[in-house]
Structure formats: structure tokens, C-alpha cells
């Protein structure tokens, strides 16, 4: 797809193009997200970029009331929790993401079900004291 080096920065930079990118080992076929320079399965070093569909299923989650400063700065608090989740992508690997939905969604544990289908949503975050950035989120399909 391209010859960009498999670094964590390049992984995040693809978010600006709404692309969830990882890589695939040319030797054993296993996929990584974010990309790795050395295959985690066969330890081969010939890999190529691939784009993930962004579709997956919720593996586990927590509705966090006492949040990290970064989320507190986004307005989340004990009465207004946010959802941290682990998503298994349809290509196989898992990744952490901020699970979002319609107003009030994150405050209601009953809305969440392990196995529920989700799709990636790139979240544009602007908070005090940091450069605007894009985070990986997921929303219900």
C-alpha cells in the first residue's frame, strides 16, 4: 500500500485520513494493529500495510466515573461516565477504544452487551492544554 515505516506515529497519522491501518506478515499472514516491525507470531520481518475495516465486536468494557485527566478535561465525571472498551476487529486482532453512542448512551450499563457489533469512529478531541488530536472510538452499528 505504501512504504511508510511501521512506527506508532504513522499508525496515528492515518487517523486523519479516517483509516485504521495495521500490517500483515508476508510469511505467516498474521495481522497486527498497530503495525509491528517484527511479526509477533513467526518473527519474520517482511510485512505490509493493510487497512482494517473498522468493524468488530465488543469483548469487554467499563463505564468509568473517575477518569483519566484527559477525559475529565473532556467533561466526564462520576455522574457522567465514559465507556472504555476492547473491540475484536473482524480481521482478528483486538484494540482498545472509547465506545461512544447517542446522548446518554455511555451512562447506561444496560446499553452495552459483550458481543455487540461496533464500527470505528475517529473522534476529534479538543481539550485544554493539548493540541487537537484524533482518537480511536467505536460506535454501535
Amino acid at each position, binding site marked *: 500500500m505504501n512504504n511508510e515505516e511501521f512506527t*506508532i506515529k504513522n499508525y496515528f497519522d492515518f487517523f486523519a485520513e479516517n483509516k485504521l491501518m495495521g500490517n500483515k506478515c508476508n510469511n505467516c499472514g498474521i495481522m497486527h494493529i*498497530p503495525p509491528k516491525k517484527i511479526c509477533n507470531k513467526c518473527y519474520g520481518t517482511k510485512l505490509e500495510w493493510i487497512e482494517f475495516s473498522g468493524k468488530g465486536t465488543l*469483548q*469487554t*468494557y*467499563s*463505564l*468509568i*466515573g*473517575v*477518569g*483519566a*485527566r*484527559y*477525559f*475529565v478535561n473532556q467533561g466526564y465525571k*462520576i455522574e457522567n*461516565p*465514559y*465507556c*472504555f*472498551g*476492547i*473491540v475484536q476487529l473482524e480481521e482478528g*486482532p*483486538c*484494540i*482498545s*477504544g*472509547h465506545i461512544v453512542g447517542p446522548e446518554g448512551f455511555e451512562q447506561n*450499563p444496560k446499553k452495552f452487551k*459483550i458481543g455487540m457489533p461496533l464500527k470505528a469512529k475517529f473522534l476529534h478531541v479538543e481539550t485544554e492544554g493539548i493540541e487537537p*488530536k484524533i*482518537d*480511536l472510538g467505536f460506535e454501535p452499528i
Partner: protein
Amino acid sequence: MGKLARRVAIVGAGMSKFGAHYPIKQNRDLWQDALINTIESVDHGVNLQKDVEELYLGNFSADLFNHEAHLAPLMAQLAGINPKPAARIEAACCSSGIAMRYGVLAVASGIHDFVLAGGIETMTEVPTVDVTDSLAAAADTRLEYPAGATFPGLYAAVATAHMHKYGTTEENFFDVAIKNYDNGAENPYAQVQMTIEQVIEGKITKAKKRGLEPPSWNNPYDFLRSESNPYIAYPLRLFDCSLVTDGAACVLLASEDIARKYTDTPIWITGTGQGSDTLALHDRDSLTSFLSARTAAQTAFKMSGLEPKDIQIAEVHDCFTIAELVALEDLGFYKPGEAAAAVSAGETKRDGILPINTSGGLKTKGHPVGATGTAQAVEIFKQMRGIAERNRQVKKDIERALSHNVGGSGASSVVHIYEK
């Protein structure tokens, strides 16, 4: 392979009182409290300056909590052992469990006969949101933190998965908390020395004093299910979480050649095991069990020649109530998904068949993260010698014990087995 080249014993162990000590007491003060407590525990006396050959110091994050990064030489100075070697060991919340392991390995190798291993953390110097952020630095800060991960949040994700897979309930978590409050109430070194019943009485008294309608909780479960016990990270509530704590703890490790110079009842460390796993929870094969802990346990059991059924008492890493259930399953005491029922049946209480966290655990003794591993060894040392304070001494002769110390959300673990 996998055996200690010679026997190593704990001949002294002590700790500072755990609690919210800053600014009255800071790292160097708590460390000296722990040193004095340790010296007093050595039956035939010890001269640290003369006898200690190296210091292994566990500390997670004095850099972030206290703006102090280079702690070991200072703590060595306070123990009087400069210019002998001293370095800090970092493995998140199992920093001092691993510091103790390195001390054991050094003595077993023959390079030293007598070493000091300890741990220290002062967490209350910074506001709670900074404690949360600093602890989150033990997770994958590039991939987990922007998704919202906190330390309680990651364990809550483990709890959600455990509930889904095994039908574990919030009441199962409450059982762990109630037991550990009962134990902490008997520990003069614990941060919280109250049973849940006493916590409830306190809240009722307070409400009456303010002229408010007193709450009508009939039992600990009513209270734990109420809004007075809010979700920190669903499904984990406030009383499922360990505390923010300042404290220090140490052990003195001696070779078999000199151990009896210090005591007639050395506590032998006959197994030590350590494991690692992916830093991010999302890269694990299992979300309900820690591979690092299972690996550490298998190594330690194999080294000692013992099996889980031989262990009579254990201190396990209950940074959250779910973590105690996972620990009991990872250590092989119970099959996956079966620990909760055993805890509910009282098997892990002080008078049960397998007392767990008689110290009160991280839950009530407190969790100054870098000091927790050696503080677990302090409790084992006391229980095996029959000198645990107040009513928490287990009423049987303890010949074989275990401690289990986990770093982060299970990316590092260390397990020790002790015999008399």
C-alpha cells in the same frame, strides 16, 4: 535449572504504618519507620551498616508522585549501607515483590550472604486525578490511555468479562471486600481498621449528628449496593477498590550459612517465580486470567516442589475485589470461575480452610504500590511465626505460605512460596 543454588531465608521483616501520611511523613521518613520496624523484628539483633551487602528497592513512580527519581542511594544512606550497591526496581505494583526476588536470587547465587529488599511509595502528595493518571502510566499510554483506560477501568473490564463468562456477580465482589475489611480491622499497620459494619455505624452516627434521616441499611450488602458506594468504574464500586496509600516495607534475606545467626526461626523462601504478559489488556488471549501470574505461580511451585493444595495461607494482590478472585484461580487454588463460590462459603476467611489476605490485603491495609510486595512478605513472616497482632493470627501452625504480587493490569507478576 529452576532451582535455587542454596537456601535463602527471611530473618527480619517490618513496615511503616500504612496510611495517608503526606506531608507529615514522606518517602525518607516512611522508609526509616520500616527500617526500625524491621531491625526490631530480628531476634538476635542486626547491624545493617555492617551486615547488609546490597539494597534492592522497589518503587513504581516517585518520579510522578514526588518528583524524586533516584531513590535507592538515599534509602541506602538512611540504612547506613553506602557505598554498597543500591538500585531501584520498577515493575508497577509488583516493584518490591520483584525487588525481593532479585535479593533472593543474589543470595542464592552466592554473590551475597545478606541483603535488604524493600519497597516504598508516597501517593497522597498529588491530587486524586494525578494519582489516577500516574497509575495509568503503568498501562499502555499510547493505546489504552486515549481510549480512556484507568487502573480501575482496566480491572473493571476484567470484571465485566469475568461476570459474562462465569456468572460472577457484584455480591461476589462484596464478599471479598467484607472479608478484607474484617481482617484489616485487626491490623494495627492497616490504613483502614474498620469492619464494614463499623463503616455503616459511622455513617449512621454522622447522619444523626447532622439531624438527617439515618440510612436504613440492614446489613453490609444493603450498604454496598447503595448509592453511598458509587461506581468508580462500572462494575467496580468505591469499596471494590484498594486505597491511595503512603508506606514502606522491608525484608532482610540471609543465606542458609548465616541465617541462624539472626534467628532460630528463619522463614525459608523455597520458591520464586516471575512472569510477564502483553502490556495492553487488548492483546491478551484471556480477559479473565493473567498469564504472567499463572507463569510465576507454576515456576514457584515447581521450584518448591509444592502444589496449590499444600499452601495454608496466602497474601494475594487484591488491588480490586475482582483481582482477588482472579488471583485465587490463577494460583490454582480454585478452578476458573469457582473462586467466588468458595469466598462466599467463607473458605478464605481467617478461620476458613485457606485464609487469604489476613493483613486486610491491598483493600484495607492499603496499597502504596511500590511497597506492596514486601508488605505481603511482612504479613507472611508474622503469620508463620504466630505473632500477627490483635485477633488476626490464624489459629493453626503455618508451615507453608504464598504471596502473589501483580504489576499493572497483569503485565508483570511475581509469586513467592515460604516454608518454616
